């Protein structure tokens, strides 16, 4: 099911949470709404679900205008960060809930409900636990029950609100892989909210990066990572180093020195962004050179913090942990790839 969000605005007590957001979600894709807290990503998800009403704008499911429809009518599957399992029901009762509450005319017979619930528990690899209660399961298991429960109603769209947010790192990684597999097997249009860029980069077909109630950039993980369109996205997705520079006569200047990389036509103060690992060490003057302020090894790389010039600019670069330059007190380098944004 294709979902279109059209010029949606949402205010809470006149405080805007979303400003005029539009987003087209392709049928069958797995898209991540990514942003820091307060960026409006959860609000957008809840608006699509129908748990909130937009102040202005429309939401379409396919060609059908869903804006005025209630949550129940939208037929969505929603997975909550804190599972929201019904604590007084067994796992099986939790999963069959959505089918049991249907009106008699559309409700499958009891045997069929049970069969489908067991099938879904099998899909989420929890066969045999159907008689347990939610508080007898681990966090990861609970979230899988929550997903099975959401899938039971055959939703048109699957919505997940920070589904792995309450789990520890190892379980998160496993569930991530597993969610990807489920997505490929069931083919549901899936929208999930996360503030974890690694999760989004690894899991999603497309990212929708949000900040302060606006969409900053939408694209595949590679395109967003490789060509961020705003300083925010560059800073938020992946590691980044930032320098305040000046563009003059086609060159980039840091203070009174050119740094050896050519700029386009823009003139004046600018912000230079590059990835700490996307650099090359060079000899000579026309480079970014600095004194090592700190150097620590992080797994397979060495992160070096350099102080450039006298103005107190500090940037971080990554070197292989056994690189001889890691021992030096002064390092000169040049970003291999970079991006300039007007200051």
């Amino acid at each position, binding site marked *: 099911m294709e979902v279109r969000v059209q010029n949606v605005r949402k205010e809470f007590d006149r405080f805007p949470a979303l400003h005029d957001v539009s987003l087209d979600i392709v049928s069958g894709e797995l898209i991540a709404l990514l942003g820091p807290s307060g960026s409006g990503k959860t609000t957008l998800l809840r608006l699509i679900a129908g748990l909130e009403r937009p102040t202005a704008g429309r939401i379409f499911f396919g060609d059908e205008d869903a804006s005025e429809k209630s949550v129940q009518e939208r037929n969505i599957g929603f997975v909550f960060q804190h599972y929201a399992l*019904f604590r007084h029901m067994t796992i099986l009762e939790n999963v069959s*809930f959505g089918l049991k509450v249907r009106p008699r005319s559309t409700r499958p017979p009891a045997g069929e409900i049970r069969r489908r619930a067991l099938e879904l528990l099998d899909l989420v690899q929890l066969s045999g636990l159907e008689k347990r209660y939610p508080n007898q399961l681990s966090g990861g298991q609970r979230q899988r029950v929550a997903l099975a429960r959401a899938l039971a109603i055959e939703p048109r769209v699957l919505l997940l609100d920070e589904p792995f947010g309450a789990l520890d790192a190892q379980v998160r990684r496993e569930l991530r892989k597993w969610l990807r597999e489920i997505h490929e097997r069931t083919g549901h249009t899936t929208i999930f909210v996360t503030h974890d860029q690694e999760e989004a980069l690894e899991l999603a077909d497309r990212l929708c990066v949000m900040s302060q109630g606006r969409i900053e950039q939408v694209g595949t993980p590679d395109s967003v990572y490789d060509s961020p369109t705003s300083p925010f996205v560059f800073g938020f997705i992946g590691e980044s180093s930032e320098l305040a520079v000046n563009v003059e006569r086609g060159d980039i200047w840091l203070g009174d020195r050119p740094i050896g990389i050519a700029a386009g036509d823009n003139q004046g103060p600018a912000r230079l962004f590059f990835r700490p690992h996307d650099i090359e060490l060079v000899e000579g003057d026309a480079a970014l050179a600095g004194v090592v302020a700190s150097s620590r090894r992080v797994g397979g790389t060495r992160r070096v913090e350099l102080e450039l010039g006298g103005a107190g600019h500090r940037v971080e670069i990554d070197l292989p942990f056994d690189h001889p330059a890691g021992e030096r007190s002064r390092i000169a380098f040049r970003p291999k790839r970079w991006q300039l944004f007007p200051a």
Partner: protein
Amino acid sequence: MAARPHAPRRASPTNEPLWVRWALILAGLVFMALFLVLPLLAVFSEALRQGIGAYVQSLQSPDALSAIRLTLLVAAIAVPLNVVFGIAASWAIAKFEFKGKAFLITLIDLPFSVSPVISGLVYVLLFGTGSVLGPWLKSYGIEILFAVPGIVLATIFVTFPFVARELIPLMQDQGTGDEEAALSLGASGWQTFWRVTLPNIKWGLLYGVLLCNARAMGEFGAVAVVSGKIRGQTTTMPLQVEMFYNEYQGTAAFALASLLALLALVTLVLKSALEWRFGDELAATGRGH
């Protein structure tokens, strides 16, 4: 190596000497015996002074039976109404955001802070002969004051906060996640309430009902003002106890009082059992009235 000269002493914050501890415990026990156990014992011993036969007989007098019946009737009306009100109010307060919420919570607490006699007088002013409402209702043959409806109204007013006070913190603590999940799965509002919300609050609700019922049966002040104390018609158990006592019918008074005391004891036991068994599911705050 010599013994460590500065071995860290685990200083308990409550390390008073033994005699202080026992003195404090004793003081507590004596106080409890004097003010709680002794009166309770007195009630039962007075009731049974003339033997079990007289005790049973005095409970079977028409006045006593009518008082018991009226008390049960009033509780049977007031408690369910306050359950419905309490659930509705705490549902609104815990699950929705609206203006004037803090004011509503204060309003719910009002009966706790108003003297029961005032609560009764409010109804006398509202429905008395000098009011607008009273004579108007009377012209349709509806008696409020000095009749069962007045007693029910006064009881509802006095026991108003019990259920709501117990449920509001519990429901606020549980949040709206479960309800949203149920709605997203296609459940209607009613289905969500019956299948998700109510099971989540059932123990807290039972606890509130218990307290509400104990107070509804035991209320004296407010009921005394509105009842008119018509023998055999508008006297509840607490009122009848007083009447018996004033008429020097000691056994009858204390026999009826012992029933009320028993009710209190049963409530206390059930309350403790609930707290012990479902303590984590009961709200941590708003308890202990």
